[in-house]
């Protein structure tokens, strides 16, 4: 598959800011907007930012229109989703990708935005960025090292991340396209046209606020759907605020994952900085990366 990489950004380029899913108060986007301006970009604030329709940042039609306008506007070079929550899959099949196909642009976000990340990869063969959104800027400030990885990714420089050794890591070296994101959303995409072909890919997973048994069930769902059988490698990020049932599951999250992928020989890296917490780096979906898991740690490096 030939992957389309949207043009990287230059100073003076415009980034569109939208809320395609859950509601976010406008004041929570100010740090993000100021930071993007400080980095030399113009910011086009979409109608859905600060807009609210109950749970969502607008009705389906409003969220769709805001995203569609940003996709179709040739002066917008990238689209940063301010927040996830829930709502992308309610509009993904209504999007008209014609203008985007001619002029691909970077789409940025994680959590519920995993819908777009994987849909773009699988259906439009186009890369996007799994990375920090407005809430992360709001909490950590624009100078935070994890936030700055987004700036680097947008500039077109090759990405490279190192992490400390983790006792459960399974060693190996492998190259492949990077796919993945939020586990609940990947489970949600199973059986739909948006689920990525994971063969020989490096799959990364993170989640938040799930029950332990449900994490097990979702992994089993991916496995029984054949999505883990031919992976190149697996990268496990944070699973924050996981909940347990009254009678405990008896294993922690990483043990659950380890148990589920025990039959496979691909390398597995635990504790990678991709999560709903501060530790969440920018990752280019679909782009070929090298993954090295050794006793000295983990290196994930964008291929030359």
């Amino acid at each position, binding site marked *: 598959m030939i992957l389309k990489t949207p043009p990287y950004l230059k100073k003076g380029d415009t980034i569109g800011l939208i809320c395609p899913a859950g509601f976010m108060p406008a004041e929570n986007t100010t740090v993000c907007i100021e930071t993007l301006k400080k980095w030399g970009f113009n910011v086009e604030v979409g109608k859905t930012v600060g807009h*609210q329709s109950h749970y969502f940042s607008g009705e389906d039609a409003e969220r769709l229109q805001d995203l569609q306008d940003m996709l179709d506007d040739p002066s917008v070079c990238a689209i940063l989703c301010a927040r996830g929550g829930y709502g992308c899959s309610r509009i993904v099949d209504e999007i008209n990708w014609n203008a985007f196909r001619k002029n691909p642009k970077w789409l940025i976000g994680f959590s519920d935005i995993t819908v777009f990340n994987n849909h773009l990869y699988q259906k439009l063969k186009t890369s996007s960025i799994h990375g920090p959104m407005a809430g992360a800027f709001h909490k950590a400030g624009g100078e935070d090292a994890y936030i700055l990885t987004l700036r680097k990714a947008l500039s077109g420089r090759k990405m490279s991340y190192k992490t400390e050794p983790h006792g459960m890591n399974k060693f190996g070296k492998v190259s492949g396209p990077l796919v993945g994101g939020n586990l609940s959303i990947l*489970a949600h995409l*199973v*059986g*739909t046209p948006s689920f990525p072909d994971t063969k020989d890919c490096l799959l990364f997973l993170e989640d938040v606020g799930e029950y332990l*048994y449900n994490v097990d069930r979702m992994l089993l769902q991916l496995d029984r759907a054949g999505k883990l059988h031919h992976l190149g490698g697996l990268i496990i990020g944070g699973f924050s605020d996981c909940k347990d049932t009254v*009678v405990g599951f008896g294993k922690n999250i990483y043990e659950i994952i380890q148990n589920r992928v025990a039959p496979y020989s691909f390398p597995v890296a635990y504790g990678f900085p991709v999560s709903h917490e501060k530790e969440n780096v920018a990752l280019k979906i679909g782009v070929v990366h090298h993954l090295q898991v050794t006793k000295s740690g983990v290196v994930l490096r964008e291929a030359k």
Partner: protein
Amino acid sequence: MDRRNFLQKMGPLGALAAISVPALAGDTEPVRASGHPPPYLREGDYIGITCPAGAIDQRDARYSEVMLERWGFKTRFGSTIGRRWQQFGGTDAERAADFQQMLDDPNLKAILFGRGGYGSMRIMDKLNWDAFKKNPKWLIGYSDITAFHCHVSRCFGIPTIHSRMAGGFGSQEDQSEISLRNTLFGKPIQYEWETTTFNRPGKTQGILVGGNLSLIYAMQASISELDTDGKILFIEDVSEYKYTVDRMLINLKRSGKLDNLKGLIVGGFTSIKKEDIAYFTMSIEEIIYEKVMEFDYPVCFNFPGGHQQPNLALKLGMAYELEAIVSIAKLTEVRNAFPNPPLPFIDSIAIPHSPSSNL
């Protein structure tokens, strides 16, 4: 050429070979023929009780033992009753072995599950269904047990019973238990219930499939994926957020599972959780109706089944007539009805007693 035509052109041997390969998603055609029920029970028949998912105590299973014996059956407790490993009724291996032994035991005419919870899916691929296919017996349960309902429906087309389980029996026979007793003795199902005004009126016939929405969802794209084409779909769920219900239904819709239904029956959606921040203001009825608005098959809500009282027994995999009018719905079992689409070679191997049955 699509896969089905390809299989038909290859003839029976080709179809068999193609299907018997240990399969991942998409490698199997769903079994379309249904309606050959396992033998109904007579007094003196044995019912096994096992826990393929969550654990129950011996004490909790006692009510079901007493009641089944009052109905004239004999019961046999599996080794997983009263066993506990974490939240499960034993380790995966123990639960699989206990269930397997009951599937293989020709003396058992039905298997009543202890409870749902979580865990059926963890043992699914460890089970050998050969004996069950030759001598089908009733599998009885709901909630997490929907994993087995889906698998058996998709792979073998053998009817199963969606109903209350051993852990839910009480000392006095109630409506749920009476409906199960009647079903086990072969009394045709005929229910009429009051619905909500969200009904989409109409009359339809089809094979009933379904169960717990979360589990139907968890089977997606696997070998156990539920085939809903031309079927009446039943769904129920418990303790989910509204947005999660919405998300699961969007998954079914985006994967085409709601496109070709004959009808939709919605059971209990109970103990729905509230979102912390901004409420998802659509009601469950609105969330569901929105997904099927564009179609014209009958839709009816409020079926007395699921995580609620009563939880009336439903034979899945069998043909029914569903009639929805403004505020009332009727579900009536259709005897001797095998509305099969023309798939001769695949259908022929789905008949449980067929010697070539090699799925």
